[in-house]
């Protein structure tokens, strides 16, 4: 069984630096950590590996990322915790990607690795909050997608069963493999590495590919492949003040209506 876990390097702090010219996040790598949602994704992959491995099945977990060369450090940390190997897509031509270009690049990486049984992503990244990558990868791979998994019930090599979040609560779903799954942060807690794991991570293979190596179309990568154009980014002003609406419910509703009409809505 082959599981691919997509991980993203995100700033370890909420104080994100923006490039005023490109309107993209400055990723200098110095303070980057694995996106916490992706940590959960890795733990679920490792649990499948533990469970299926105990049953005698050969399960291989590969961590995949697109990022600057320093991201290799994070992939090796994932290997120290139990992943088998890693693939890093790193090329200036990948930079500035929106979710479409990112999921395209990652799907190229997945195809490079061969046909996986399961791709697991964090539901979203703490720096972008889009929650689009997993479903977009599923679309590009033409695989079913189970989004926002709260609890993985079973994954037996042919299908997965999981509780996923919905607007109405949670539902139990089953999907045939190969599939893509995105996971909520609280679905599991990533294990720590052992001394053996740290040692293994030093020698483990981490392949680094550029656009050509990944077999990707340069026109669909990075800024060139991103239909999303950020025109301007700014720190929103903190609104203060506000108006109190008082009186009986009917009076309050009337006042509210006047305010809304006054705003031209």
């Amino acid at each position, binding site marked *: 069984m082959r599981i691919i876990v997509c991980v993203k390097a995100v700033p370890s702090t909420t104080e994100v630096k923006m490039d005023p010219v490109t309107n993209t996040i400055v990723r200098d790598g110095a303070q980057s*950590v694995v996106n916490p949602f992706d940590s959960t994704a890795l733990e679920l992959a490792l649990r499948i590996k533990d469970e299926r491995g105990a049953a005698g099945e050969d399960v291989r977990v590969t961590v995949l990322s697109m990022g600057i060369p320093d991201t290799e450090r994070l992939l090796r940390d994932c290997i120290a915790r139990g992943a088998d190997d890693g693939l890093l897509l790193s090329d200036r031509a990948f930079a500035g990607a929106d979710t479409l270009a990112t999921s395209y690049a990652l799907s190229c990486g997945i195809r490079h690795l061969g046909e996986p049984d399961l791709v697991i992503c964090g539901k979203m990244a703490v720096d972008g909050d889009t929650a689009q990558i997993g479903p977009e990868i599923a679309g590009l791979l033409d695989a079913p997608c189970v989004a926002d998994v709260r609890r993985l019930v079973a994954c037996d090599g042919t299908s997965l069963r999981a509780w996923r979040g919905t607007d109405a609560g949670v539902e139990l779903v089953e999907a045939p493999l190969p599939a893509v799954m995105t996971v909520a942060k609280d679905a599991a*807690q990533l*294990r*720590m590495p*052992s*001394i*053996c794991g*740290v*040692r293994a991570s030093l020698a483990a293979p981490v392949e680094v590919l550029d656009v050509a190596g990944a077999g990707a179309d340069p026109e669909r990568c990075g800024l060139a492949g991103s239909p999303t154009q950020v025109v301007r980014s700014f720190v929103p002003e903190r609104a203060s003040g506000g108006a109190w609406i008082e009186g009986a419910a009917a009076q309050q509703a009337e006042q509210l209506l006047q305010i809304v009409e006054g705003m031209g809505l």
Partner: protein
Amino acid sequence: MDVPAAGMKGPVQQGCTLIRHLTDEYDDYRHDESRSQGEAQSISFPTTEDEVRAVLRELHPSHTPVTVQGARTGLAAGAVPHGGHVLNLSRMNRCLGLRRDDGGAFVLRLQPGVILSELRKYLKAKAIPASGWDAASLQALGELREAPEQMFPTDPTEASACLGGMAACNASGARSYRYGPMRPHVVSLRLALADGDMLALRRGEVVACGRHLELATELGRRISLDLPGYTMPRAKNASGYYVHEGMDAIDLVIGSDGTLGVITELEVALMPVPPVMWGVSCFFADERQALDATCGLRDGVASAAAIEYFDPASLDILRVQRERSTAFSALPLLADDARCCVYVELHCGDEREALDALDRVGKVLRDAGGSEAATWVARTELDRESLQFFRHAVPESVNMLIDERRRTDPAITKLGSDMSVPDERLHDVMRLYRETLAEAGLESAAWGHIGDNHLHVNVLPRDMDDYRRGKELFGAWAREVTAMGGAVSAEHGVGKLKRDFLKTMYGEQGLRDMARVKLAFDPAGQLGRGNLFDESLLEGGA
């Protein structure tokens, strides 16, 4: 509790408006973290050294007892009042200046009420509040901003402790294994004496001639004293006055439990944060393996900055808490076969050195019968926080357990030991603890600073009979530990709760010698009454 604003109540005495009646609104100031309750008639919250001196001058003629308080996080009741006045220094919480010493190290001048967690925040952000600083200090602050991140190494579990209190009890923590307790990091201090006179002590300036010290106050009083003749234990120690031949005078004041004077200002030396800090939790099937590993780590891993231990009962308590309480659900999951844990923290110059140290830890584990696979290696900030949560959850869980039992018997409290022995007696003292606890049929959980042979063995009384037998057992341990060359209090200080143990350790003569030192500083015996020794030893004054 918020400190009520000055002016809410009339002053007790006309001469000093800082002194207030200690009414019920100040109830929190009758106790500290030891949960002992005291009594006092008045309280003050000075903000400057001059105000401390004014309060002391007011109280001196009547020989009013004065108990000094900082953040009241102590566990030995040193800050619990014993009549008279409470001098609370929590509002003396300003950083006063910064300089570099001859070796280039940063030295920070503080008021005693600065909280350790605040200091850590300032240093991490390289943003120390510098209001009122002189030009030289501001220049040093500019240099600090450009320098590698700095830290203050003393790390008691309770980060809400204040620096003055930490100096008063010679606090320590996990990293004291490498960096020592508070004492060596205090460069200078200013001490207000009971009559309001001042003593300025700077490391290296006043040293004893043999066991004789000569000091001069700022008003010209000479303090001439012969230091006690007892020998300090060859173990981590916070028991009574620290003395040895040729000692530095400043070291006598550090750890004196507020009995010699009031620390109004102190300078502490900072050091660069080590470039690489990794924490490794190692799990074992039995305690013997953990003890052998501890000895191996001490001998074979030079970069170890802390070596801590959690016994089987501690880990079982954590397992239960993790299941029962959402507050502990984020604890890392313990393997079923993990019976006890040794945590070692590695401070290294670079990753290559850390990897080498990790290999050495692995060898020690294998030699002790453990396994490299049964380890947690924390290399990221998140993992380090997770392990810190794990370590701090142990005492917190035990406190919750005791609180539960107090619902049926409110008189019960936790009984926690604080004793240390020399390195070669680690296995002996553990055998003593295990055998006597089993004989007494007492429930317990032990954890703490095993690298320094300093464990907090906690008896968890189920009823008052357990509590009484636990106290008796601690008395017996104090005798045995003293015989092994150890200390009855290694880090919490003696305060009011461990006076009997101090007598066991130094004998009647030792206590009389200590009382003589105290009376040389404080002839009327006003300061820290009830701390270290019985008041009867102070009768008659100097």
